[in-house]
């Protein structure tokens, strides 16, 4: 497999294969850290926010680099984020109705 420098096409850069591999390595490390929390005793108040942060970090990394959102038109981001935000709001309300935050 050859490593190619970023090329210009259609007005935006394509990352090189080396860059993609670097991103995948970072994602693998974060995944390992996530799994590592399973083997370490820590209070839920610390563990859950830590897992959420790592989860969101991985999500943004995949969306930005592998799905090319950081290189493409902002309109694509807007459509995707609209669905994401709408889902978060709607199901946040649903979970609140079912008193998940108190009982869950």
């Amino acid at each position, binding site marked *: *497999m*050859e490593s*190619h420098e970023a*090329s210009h*096409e*259609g007005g935006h850069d*394509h*990352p*090189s*294969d080396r860059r*993609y*591999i670097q*991103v*995948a390595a970072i*994602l*693998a490390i974060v*995944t390992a850290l*996530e*799994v590592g*929390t*399973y083997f370490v005793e820590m209070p*839920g108040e610390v*563990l*859950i926010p830590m*897992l*959420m942060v*790592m*989860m969101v970090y*991985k*999500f943004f990394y*995949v*969306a930005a*680099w*592998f*799905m*090319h959102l950081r290189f493409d*038109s902002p*309109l*694509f981001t807007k*459509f*995707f*984020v*609209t*669905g*994401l935000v*709408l*889902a*978060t709001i*709607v*199901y946040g309300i*649903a*979970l609140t109705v*079912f008193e*998940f935050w108190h*009982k*869950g």
Partner: protein
Amino acid sequence: MADTAAVSHGHGTGTGLSDNKLLMWVFLGSECLLFGGLISTYLIYRSRFADGPAPGDIFDIPFTSVSSFVLLMSSLTMVLALSALQRGDIRNNRIWLLTTALLGSLFIGGQVYEFTTFVREGLGYTTSPFSSAFFTLTGFHGVHVSLGILMLMSLLISSLRGTLTKERSETVEIVGLYWHFVDVVWIFIFTVIYLVPSPTS
């Protein structure tokens, strides 16, 4: 054919963007609502395991971690397949497409093994509200992965027939968007369902 290629890159469209790509992003936005509903339902019902196994008693985190890693690496191979086709490297495009499909199949194999193990240990689809919500969520995700594998094989067949060229790389990109989304959903599922401490019996 030239007009199709021109339109596929956004020329002649109202937004200046590819309509096909825009449609995929809108679809993925709607998929957020689908999986949001399934994940929320699981969260509500995860404590309702009746007389059946509880999530904390039955999940095999090390095994699922390996599955997660496999799916994560399939996102890398998918983007390498696109990169190869964008520079006209047909051979490597085929290799990475096949590798992605194989990794996806490995993930599905892991899911099937996990499901059959759970059933053997007394967690069936109708055992409890927890089990129904779990199998529905992970089952839907598994179906999405399976459909993605079919799309990848379709691309591979097109490539072998000589119809998947550098000029049509957007097709691979659009399938790639679907594949990466499936991976992103699993990122959420793995963390929220498996890693966040679950109730035990």
